């Protein structure tokens, strides 16, 4: 679950939206890579809309497979963009259960949203950077809006 302490210590993660003329650039930081992916989902939700107070959906299992770590982050965000649009749910609650360079397993659950903010079409590879250091992980990703 978001914010759950792990063996690596308390989870610290954040996101910020940076300047991009045409699209939206998101800067992500976390103390571990799995939490970085979870934070990416939360940033996406913040962009997409405001949740209602309705009860959340059931937990759903999600698996994403990609060619490498960069492609995995793009594919993960695009998985959430598509599910949000089809299910009309904001997937704010995310638990990454397993993460390798090429595969992500997660459970997610969403809530209906009342007000849309930014229409996100997809995540892109453009300018994508993921850095993993002993001190934590960071990434920058551009979303087409």
């Amino acid at each position, binding site marked *: 679950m978001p914010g759950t302490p792990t063996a690596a210590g308390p989870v610290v993660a954040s996101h910020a*939206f940076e*300047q*991009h*003329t*045409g*699209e*939206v650039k998101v800067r992500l930081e976390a103390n571990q890579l799995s939490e970085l992916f979870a934070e990416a989902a939360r940033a996406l939700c913040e962009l*997409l*809309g405001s949740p209602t107070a309705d009860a959340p959906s059931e937990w759903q299992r999600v698996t994403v497979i*990609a*060619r490498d770590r*960069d*492609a995995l982050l*793009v*594919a993960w965000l*695009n998985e959430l*963009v*598509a599910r*949000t*649009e*089809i299910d*009309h749910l904001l997937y704010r609650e995310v638990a990454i259960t397993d993460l390798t360079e090429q595969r992500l397993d997660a459970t997610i659950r969403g809530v209906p949203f009342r*007000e*849309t*903010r*930014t*229409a*996100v*079409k*997809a995540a*892109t*590879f*453009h*300018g*994508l950077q993921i850095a993993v250091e002993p001190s934590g992980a960071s990434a920058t990703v*551009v979303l*087409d*809006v």
Partner: protein
Amino acid sequence: MSIHAEPIATFEYELVDGRVGTCAHVFADSELITAIAHDHSLQQLANVTSLPGLYGCAFGMPDMHEGYGFPVGGVAATALPDGVISPGGIGFDINCGVRLLATDIDRASFAPYRERVVHDISRTIPSGYGHGGRLTLERDVLARVLEGGCRALLDELDAGLPEDLDVIESGGTLAGADPTAVSERAYARGSDQLGTLGGGNHFVEVGLVDTVFDEASAARLGLYAGTITVLIHTGSRGLGHQVCTDFLALMDEAQARFGIALPDRQLACAPLSSPEGRRYLAAMRAAANFAFANRQLIAHRVRAVFRRHLGVEHTLRLVYDVGHNTAKIERHGKRELCVHRKGATRAFGPSSTEIPVRYRGVGQPVFIPGSMGTASYVLVGTDEAAARSFASVCHGAGRVLSRGAAKRQVMGNELRRTLESRGITIRCPSNQELAEEAPEAYKDIDRVVDVVVGAGLARKVARLVPLGVVKG
């Protein structure tokens, strides 16, 4: 060597980055090129010249700004049979485009109905992220729309008029579309989105022909000073987004196998002669047909709104419908090329046999919307543009401010009051979204159009001003 632009002709600059054998030109004046150089769009245009099989130069339009992969306002052609097709050169919103309808209603006659017509359009046309429409298509019907575009929509739903097809780019149907190349997830995203605007800078704008620059050409297009128009800007919605997402991942996987190395993974591409390239082209055409049909259904519903309020005698005539996020196989000179237009509009000249018979001798209509509250232009393509820009012009004013910067600089509620005090009815779900599309966030549309005309890419026909805007 850092990349920069050097003037080579009036309204034309060449990119210089120290590489030999690459060619990229930007149509701009000194003020616009300064604005363009402010972000990363020059580098993005330079990156485009890395595409295998590129034919001639890559071109930047005067509204060019930073995108992803291609810049927005980028044009590049690759030579068949082995040149590549790049989904990033088309964008996620496949065949996003603009459709203009004309009426014989004058401003005074329309004035009593303006508020209620704009309000009714906002109630009738769903907008916003992920918002489905009032119509959910069975899978087999959707497949027929993907294959047949506007013709299928007429057959299936009786949406539109048969004569509309004559004045839609490619007749509203790109041949060679393959519904089986579209993923089930794309079907799922698109099943309830036909007839919806979506979000971002999409809109339905009720306007007025404010100025006519060329009366003879305007009359051929059915545009007369002082009459009411409707401009519709939207695309292929989630279905198109998913097609691009699917094939970008596929092509990204295949780059090594094709022996292609690119400076930006978002430019991932495949030779048009490869199975991947052919399948993407077929899927992209299907998504493009969905976009044509989407604008067709929205226009059909707008016509119904006008009938409800103003009576049946006022028909909204379709002037033209043209996309600005496409790749099309076109003959230029003796070569068959795949022309990518990412945020750029096809603009065939008066002698082209590809344009409607009624517009031959005039040129293909081109619509260049300004920002919310400013003017939009109707132009026609020139024969000269074929040699200068693969018959392409810009698609709008082009952003200069990020959405975040626009929201910090502009108060949405003040903007709403300002626009309404100028007699423009606004329907937009939130003031923040309104601020994102404020005039300050865009280049000066008059200047952008002057560059297009000065460079010989198109001619001005008319200028439209908004009376009411329904924002996506």
